[in-house]
Each structure stands twice: as structure tokens, then as C-alpha cells.
């Protein structure tokens, strides 16, 4: 039997929001562009965008067409994409819900650079878990989860936002101990 665990992320988001604020201050970034990756990343980005009272509208990316597995999965219609006309010389905060293999981040970076040459891109994630297959590291992380390769974590939302953690191998690990 697999186990499900639900985790409320309200407090984590608030803390991450404060970290983003001080990150921007430390780096001297006055006019950041917040960009969320569909779907969960947009929810997180929306919360951070509100928390930090950013003037510029939130950017939204659907990176499906830049993914390296699209030849396997097939093409599907994109969710609404909204980006500033140009990212030239802008400081971008790229925001996602879960950082796992790093492949989504890679696809998002490729797509971001279609919109110009940003001055910098920083990666902000709500959850970081082990399993990187690409050299990608977050600049800011809400929480770390020590999950195994078969475990799954999914952000549900947008209101309320909570993490659903599924561990398919729990019973296998627990039974010998009984």
C-alpha cells in the first residue's frame, strides 16, 4: 500500500516570500520580472508576486514544446502564455513548484531566452527534492523533501495550496520492521 501525506504550504510560502524580498534587496534588483511555470509554478509565482507587491504583471510560461520528451508524449495545446514584450536586460525570477530532475528548468530557460537576453535569471522553487539529471541548482528554496526516486510529490491548488506526497514503497519498508 502506498501512503499519502498532505502538507499545507501557507507558512512555507510566506517564508519563501520574505526570502525573495531580501534576495532582491541584496542583489539590488528594483524591477524584477516574476515568471511562473505552468501549472503549479504559476500558483507559487502568483503568491510570491502578491507577497512582494511586484508592479509588473506576472509572466506565465508553458514549457511543453521545449521539453526533451515531447517526441514521446505528443503535442498538446498550451496553457495561456503571458510574457513581457522583451526580457532584454531584465532580472528574471523563474518560479516553479517542485525541482526534481531539472529538465523542466532546462526547457524553461530555453524558452525564456526566446524572449530576449535577460540580465540575470534566478531560480526559485517551493520544493527541492533529490534526483537531478541536469546541472541545475535553485537560488531560493521553500523546503527540502528527502524523497526516494519512486516517491511522488504534487502541488494541488491554487486555493488552498497543499503538497500531496505519495510514497509507493512505504509498506515494503515498514513490514519487515513489524
Amino acid at each position, binding site marked *: 500500500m502506498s501512503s499519502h501525506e498532505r502538507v499545507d504550504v501557507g507558512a512555507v510560502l510566506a517564508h519563501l516570500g520574505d526570502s525573495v524580498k531580501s534576495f532582491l534587496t541584496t542583489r539590488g534588483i528594483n524591477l524584477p520580472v516574476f515568471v511562473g511555470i505552468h501549472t503549479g509554478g504559476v500558483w507559487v509565482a502568483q503568491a510570491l508576486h502578491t507577497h512582494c507587491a511586484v508592479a509588473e504583471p506576472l509572466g506565465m510560461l*508553458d514549457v511543453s514544446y521545449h521539453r526533451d520528451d*515531447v*517526441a*514521446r508524449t*505528443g503535442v498538446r*495545446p498550451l496553457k495561456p502564455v503571458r510574457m513581457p514584450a522583451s526580457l532584454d536586460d531584465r532580472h528574471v525570477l523563474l518560479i516553479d513548484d517542485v525541482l526534481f530532475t531539472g529538465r523542466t528548468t532546462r526547457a524553461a530557460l530555453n524558452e525564456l531566452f*526566446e524572449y530576449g537576453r535577460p540580465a540575470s535569471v534566478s531560480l526559485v522553487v517551493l520544493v527541492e527534492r533529490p534526483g537531478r539529471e541536469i546541472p541545475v541548482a535553485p537560488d531560493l528554496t521553500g523546503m527540502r523533501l528527502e524523497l526516494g526516486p519512486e516517491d511522488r510529490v504534487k502541488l494541488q491548488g491554487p486555493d488552498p495550496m497543499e503538497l500531496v506526497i505519495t510514497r509507493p514503497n512505504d509498506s515494503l519498508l515498514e513490514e519487515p520492521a513489524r
Partner: protein
Amino acid sequence: MSSTQPTLFRLPPAAQYQLDEEGRLRHFLTIEGLPAALLEEILSTAQSFHTAADQAARKVPLLRGKTIVNLFFEASTRTRTTFELAAKRLSADVLNLDMATAATTKGESLLDTLRNLEAMHCDMFVVRHHQSGAAHFIVRHVAEHISVINAGDGRHAHPTQAMLDMFTLRQHFPDFSAITVVIVGDILHSRVARSEIQALRSLGVGEIRVIAPRTLLPREATSLGVIPFKSMEEGLVGAQAVIMLRLQKERMHGSFVPSEDEYYRLYGLTRARVELLAEDGIVMHPGPVNRGVEIESAVVDGPRSVILKQVRNGIAVRMAILSMAMRRHAW
């Protein structure tokens, strides 16, 4: 074989070729037999590729490493170039073969040409041919990994044109059930008309009318689910869109039309006739336009005309169809 009793061209159902075992697009030969949900998916996917006129076009890597061959046995400018742009924006490599001047004129058979292209590791053929059923024929004879897109075959079908027109219509009228669309002109010889009617019906357009001289209207017009009108003055009234067809001189061997002048007098879309449309009514034309033959020049350039928008939409719609039909890797 010009006939006094016009009949509709028919081919065996293509559904068996067009979809794979999971119901996904495999080849795109005709609108006929395709589920409405798939047509909707094409329109939604095209929306993902659509960029407004003032936006810079962006490339996506969806077809990187793939080779697409534009195999055109019949002249075309708009269709071929928008297919080419669509393929390039998907990062595919594109070969343009103008077959009118190619090896087939030196006696090579179509099948030998296909074998040669297969040997070059091509992944997709975009085919335009003067014979009805040419794309079907190629599907039955090419290697398994190749997808075939029909870019117009004889009098049979021009499905990508129909889809880009549906996309353009949708931009103006999100609710198809509430609109009336009129198709004017040579319904009999027009692959565009046939595909348009199938798409309009499948997507649930409220009312479809056709206006044509009796000699250019297939006998079974009413069984297509369209309402025939004899005159522009009756048929255009209150419609949200009129699709003008080109008078296809090259496909007419009999005397279907007494003279160009009379055709224009009876069926030409003039500024006065445009006023019969609904207040928000639009004017469409698949091109190439014969100014002063089926449509008044001032209407082509007028405020109701969406003709150039149709051309631009052709890129996004063809990107959707190319990317959806490309064979997926099994891994």
C-alpha cells in the same frame, strides 16, 4: 469528360489511414471522418502557436532533426510557403520539390520518386497534386514511418485550408452554433468548398449556405447539409461570413459559365452585396484572388476582408497539424 450532370467526387473513407490506434493524428488527408474533438484539438494547438501580427515569430524545437518534404505537383504559392514557414518555425529541415519541373517529367514514376525520398530519411510529405486521391495513394505506398499531409488533391480535399478558415472564423465568432456561413462560387470543382463544408458541419455551424450557378453546384448539394441559394441577393442576407471561391478556369473544360462578365454580374461580391451581410459579417477568400472576376477589388482591401489574416493564420494551423501528425518515438 465534362458532364451535364455534375456529381461529387468520392473516395473510400480515409479514417482508417488518418488516425493511429490511440486515435491520434497519423496522416491528414481529409476532414471527412475525423472526430470533431480532433478538429477542436487542432484549433487549440494552433492557438498555442499563434502570434499576433505585431509580435515577433518564435521558433520551437518540436520537429528538430525531422525532415519535411513539400511535394508539389501543382502550382502553389501561399500553401507551399506557409507550409515551409510552419515547418521551419518547428525547427524541421525542409525540402521543396517542384515536381512540375522535377524528375517525373523525365519519366520517373511517382513510386520511384517516393522510394528515393525515403532513402534520404524524410519523415513527412506535404503533397499537392492535381489528381483527386493522390495523397491517399502515397499513404498506401510509403514507408511506415512517414506521415502524409494533403495540401490539396484535385477536386477532392484541401483540409489544411479548411482548418485555417475555421481558426479565422473562431477568432471572430467563438460560438459557431449561432452563425451562418455562405460559400459562393464553383462548389463543384472546389476541394476547398468540400473540405470547408465538412469542417463547418463537424464543428456545428448553425447554418451553411451555398450560392452557385446550377452548373457549378453538385446535384447532391442538399445531402451535404447545406442550403443552396440561387442569388447573392437572397443568400447573403444576415450571414456572419462569406467564403468566396476562385473561378477555377484551369479545372473547367465544359461551358459551365457563359462569360466572366456575366459571372461577376450574378455572383461577384461587390461592395453593395457586402452590405447584405450581418453587421459584423466578414469576407473570406482562400486565394488566389481574381479581382473583378469573383470579387470587387475594393472588397478585397475593404474593412470586412480577413483575407490576409487567413494567410497569417495558415502558419499557426499548419504548425499544429505538422506537429500533431509527426510520428512519436517509441523509445
